[in-house]
C-alpha cells in the first residue's frame, strides 16, 4: 500500500515537473493554440515578429550526422526551395545551420537553421528554426521576423523562455 502510494506520488511529481505543450508561454507575447501540435505566439509590440512552436513525429533512421550534414541540408534546401516556389515565395536562403546537442544526463540533438525568403508581397522575411529531437517526436521552434535579421540574443532569449527540455511532448 505504502509502495503504491509512493509510486503514485513519484508519477504525479514527474507530471507536474514537465510542463504540458499547450501551457508554454513567452513574456510579452500573445498565445494562440492552433492545434494540439501547434502554438503561435505574436508579439504585442512588434506585429512583424511571430513564433511558431510545433511538434511532429520523428524517425531515428532519419537522424542527422555531422558527417553527412552538409549533403543532407543541401538536399533539404533544394526540396524546400521547390515547395516555397510553388506557393509563390522566392529567394530562399539558408544563411547558417548547425547540429548541436542539449541536455546533461540525456542529450538531445538540435538542428538550427537560419535563413530568409521573400514572401508573396516580396518583403524580406528572416527565420530561425530550432528542431530539438526527443525519442519519437521533435519540437520545432520557429521565429519569423519581417525586414530585420534575428539576433543570437533573441534566439537565446526565446529558447530559454520556452524551456524545451521540460516540455512534455509525448
Amino acid at each position, binding site marked *: 500500500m505504502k509502495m503504491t502510494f509512493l509510486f503514485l506520488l513519484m508519477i504525479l511529481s514527474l507530471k507536474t515537473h514537465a510542463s504540458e505543450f499547450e501551457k508554454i508561454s513567452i513574456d510579452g507575447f500573445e498565445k494562440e493554440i*492552433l*492545434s494540439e*501540435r*501547434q502554438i*503561435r505566439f505574436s508579439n504585442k509590440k512588434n506585429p512583424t515578429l*511571430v513564433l*511558431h512552436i*510545433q511538434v*511532429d*513525429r*520523428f*524517425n531515428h*533512421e*532519419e537522424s*542527422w550526422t555531422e558527417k553527412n550534414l552538409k549533403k*543532407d*541540408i543541401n*538536399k*533539404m534546401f533544394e*526540396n*524546400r526551395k*521547390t*515547395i*516555397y516556389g*510553388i*506557393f*509563390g*515565395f522566392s529567394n530562399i536562403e539558408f544563411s547558417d545551420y548547425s547540429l548541436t546537442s542539449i541536455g546533461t544526463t540525456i542529450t538531445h540533438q538540435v*538542428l538550427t537553421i537560419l535563413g530568409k*525568403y521573400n*514572401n*508573396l*508581397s516580396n518583403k524580406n*522575411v528572416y*527565420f530561425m*528554426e530550432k*528542431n530539438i529531437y526527443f525519442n519519437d517526436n*521533435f519540437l*520545432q521552434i*520557429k521565429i*519569423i521576423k519581417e525586414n530585420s535579421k534575428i539576433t543570437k540574443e533573441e534566439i537565446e532569449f526565446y529558447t530559454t523562455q520556452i524551456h524545451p527540455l521540460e516540455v512534455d511532448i509525448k
Partner: protein
Amino acid sequence: MKHKIISLLLLFTFMTNESLADAWIKEVQCPRPLIREVVTMDQLCSNLTDVLCRDTLKSERRSCNEKNSIIHKNMTLNEISQFGESCFKSSANTFKNFFTEFLPELVTSMGKIIQSGGDLKPSGWWGNIKGLYETSRSISADIYENFNKNPGEFITGLWKKIEDSLSIAVDNYDCLKSTSKVEKICSFITSYALPPIVFAKFLIKGARFTKEFVKDLITEKKLVSENVKPSLFKQLLENSPKKLKLTVKEYHQYLSFYRLLGYSEEEFNYLYHAGLLNKIQPEKMLKTFSAEGKLQKASLLEGYNDFQATLPKSVAIVSPGGSNEKQLMEKIAAQKSQSFIKQKTLIKDLQKIQDQIFKQSKTAPALKSKHLLTELQDVQEAELKMQHDILINAQYLKNSDEINKAQKRIDELEIILEDAESIR
C-alpha cells in the same frame, strides 16, 4: 474487330495527345458561353433553356438576370478572397484544419513527390528523406503567416495555379446560381482535391494532370451519384451483343467526350448499348449546337425512344433532386457502405492470392515461375480495378483515410504493373 481497333486507337490518340484533346474540348465548348468569360444577356438566357440546363433544379438554376457569376476569368483579388472564404465556410471544419492538419500533410506529400522524381514510389521508399517533417512544419508556419497578413493574396496565388485545370468543373456548374455554384465547386474541391496527396499532385504535376483528373472525376462523380446508372451500365455491358469492350476508365473518357459534344448520359448509354459508338469516327463527331450536329445526333438517336421504353423502371427515380431525393441519397449511401465492405474483403483476398503466387514463383522452376508471374500480374490488374472502385466509393463516403489508402495502393500497383510491362 477492325472498327473496334481503329476506334480504340483513336480513343488512345485522343487520350494521349494533349493538344488534340485540348483542341477538341475547346471546339466543343466554344458555342457554350463559359462563365469565366463576359457573356451577353441573350447568351445567359438562351443558355438557361439550353439542353445543358434542363436537368438543373429550378431552385438551383441561376436567374436570367444574373450577369455576374462569382467565378469568372477576371476575378478581382477581393472576389477571389470572398470566394475562398465562402469555400472554407461551406466546407465546415476545413478552414480550422487547413493550416494545422492539411497543410503539413500537403507539404509532406509534395516533398515525397519531388524526392521521388514526380511520382510516388511504393511505400517504404521515402522512409529516409531527411528533414521532411521539419520542412513540412516549417513551411506551414510561413504559409500561415502569409495567409494571416493577406488572405486574398494567398488564395489568389493558389487559385491561379488550379483555375485553368478546374475550368471544366467550373463550366460544369454553369447553369447554377452563384450560391449553389460556390457550394458545388467547393464541395467538389474539398471532396476530391483536398486529400493532401491529390492536391500535392495538382500543384507539382501541373495543369495537364489536374485537367485529366478533374475530367475523370466529373464523369465518375455523375456515375456514382446517380446510383442506378452503374448497375444499368453493368447490365448493358453484360447484355449487349454489339457492345465495345471498354474498361471503366475508357467508358468515362468516351462519356466525357460525348457530354462535351452535348449528349446526355442516357443518350450516350443508348449509343453504347446499340453499338453506335463505332458508327462515326470520333473526329467526325459534331457538336450538337450546330445544325449539322443536331442532324447527326438525330440520326444516331433514331432508336433512342424505343430503347428508353425497355429500360428497367428503377431508372425513372433517378432525377437529380426529386421529392424523394433525401431517402434516395440515404439509400445510396447505405448501399455504398455495404458494397464498400464487400470490396474491402475482396481486396484482402486478392492480396492473399498475390502473396501466395509470389511465394510459389520464388521456388518454382524458371518456366513455371514465368507463368506464375503472369498470373500474379492478372491478379494485380484485378486489384487495381477494384482499388479504383474503392476510391470512388471512399470519395462518395468522404472517408479520407480510405481515399489515401486506395490512392497510395493505386500508385504502387501502377508502378509495379508498368515495371512488369517494361520487363516483358
